[in-house]
């Protein structure tokens, strides 16, 4: 994605996330569960989550040099951040994503 200040400002409210998985694995299933729980709990409606199966869409590799499964990528707000694995370390993910804690 291009680094456009206007775009950045427009999307500043929402966090855009992409989760890469391979449909069948335990890790992928756990990653899906963890991220959705996390988003519901801490982000409410302030997020956009896309789940992409790299088997079905190997072209995601064109944009990035290498895409792991499972992995979570924060596209916005910049900078891009990447988390590899099943996301079971919730604290790390939250800190990494820079999410402010809600009560």
């Amino acid at each position, binding site marked *: 994605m291009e680094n456009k200040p206007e775009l950045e400002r427009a999307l500043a409210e929402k966090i855009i996330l992409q989760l890469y998985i391979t449909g069948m694995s335990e890790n992928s299933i756990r990653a899906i569960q963890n991220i959705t729980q996390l988003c519901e709990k801490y982000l409410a409606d302030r997020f956009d989550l896309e789940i992409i199966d*790299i088997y079905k869409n190997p072209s*995601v590799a064109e944009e990035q040099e290498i895409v*792991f*499964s499972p992995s979570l990528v924060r596209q916005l707000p910049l900078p891009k951040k*990447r988390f590899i*694995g099943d996301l079971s370390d919730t604290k790390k993910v939250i800190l990494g994503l820079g999410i402010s804690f809600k009560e």
Partner: protein
Amino acid sequence: METTTSEDLLSEIEGLKLRLSEAQEAIDAIKTGSVDAFAIRNDGKPEVFTLQSLDYAYRVLIEKFGEGALNLTRDGLIIYCNSYFSTLLGMPNEKVTGSYIFDLITDETRERFQEHFVLALQGSSKTEITLSANNKKIPVYISLTSLQPQLATVGMIVTDLSEKKHNEQRIIDYQHRLQIQNKIFNLAEEIASTGSYEWNLQTGELAYSDNLFRMLGCLPQEFVPSTEKYLTFIHPDDKEQLNKTPLQLTYRIISKNGEVKYFRTTEKEIDDPGRRMIIGTNQDVTPDIINTETLRKKNIELEHVNKSLDQFASIASHDLQEPLRKIRVFTSLLKHRFDADLSVDTRGLIDKINASSERMSLLINDVLNFSRICHAENMFMRTDLNQILDNTLTDFDLLILEKGASVRKGNLPVIEAIPLQINQLFYNLVGNALKFSKAGTAPVLTISSRMLPSEEIENASNLNGQLSYSEISFEDNGIGFEQQFSEQIFSIFERLNSQQQYSGTGIGLALCQKIAGQHQGGIRAEAQENNGSTFYVRLPLTQSADRVVN
């Protein structure tokens, strides 16, 4: 050439640090098995590589799921098949892998397979074929998919249809059997004049058998069955009675063509979970009812006729006797008043007139008795034959004394009989024995009995093989008769002697035969001219079940 400031260097270091940490993170993830696969750009083409753990899951799926899975080359060579498939064929997996799929398909379905295989090379296709292995034929449904571009192979999923086919065949068999059963059922209904119906209480649906329609005078399935429609067939006078459920009732219907019939309906409730039904049968009992009714009417008629006949016989005999009495009265008067004036001849003539009228009188009585034997009021009861015999002998007290006769009595049985008739029977036989005695010889009468052995009963055409019989014999030393007349004598009015020699109406023995017949027995005679005679009377100890016994 650019001079790099320390700021530039620091930011470059920061950037490198970040990239390094990311790379390290990736390596750590791979090491710990937190990643299953990755997509990578290789020569501009993105590719996905799978690591160990993920592959395993898929393998387990393919091996374990209940369908056959194969991987075929474009030439149809099987490079992989799962255990389900090899088990289905009944062949070891190693043998299947490496053989050609075409060899495992029946001749009849191979062409179809080839058509679809060609289609599948470009995309996917589904069809039904029959596999053949170990002389087994296995009907299957297959789904072919090209695995391009990743693999230059065709994947095939195989679903076993045998059970489905088997079940289909079973259904066809059941349907066939059901058809036959239905045919038998319909035939049975026609023969038995029954019609049946099913009534689903929950849905209100009503179904009638074909024969029920016919019984109502309609064509099978001529109209849609309903309770209202059925009510229109019921006889107006009987409508009220059809209010109970389940119904057990006989009532009248009027068929489509106006015929009145009697139906006996029997209903049964079926209360299985999930359905509440009533099944019922209507039986056309019109013939039974009519027959019973006809029989009843005929019986009443018969009773009336018998009563009339009885009355008629009584009155007729009385009226017939009256003039005879007068003859006797006035011939008596003649003799009495004019005794002195009458010559021997004249007196003789008067005597003949008298004798004739006496005979006529006896005849009327005998004929009356004879006619009475036939009908009703004949109640069988326990009868002691010894007592009957004693009574009869008492009746002949005087005659026995006059003739100096001697009677030897044996022990007679107790039987089911009509006492009055047996009385008449014995009376005639004893009377005859005394009457037809030899002049100058004191009559000797021997009466005895024996049980008839079963062979004799069977051989006798006039006896009932189901009963046991006693034979009572009346033996006398009188004038006897020629054996050739032994059957003739039982004919009514038949006489072997002229009226002058021996009095009698000629009815006596016919009466005896008739009485014996009434009791399901018989009578026969044996004699010699001038050397006595024996009369054998056969009577059953008990009457058969259809007789009224008191």
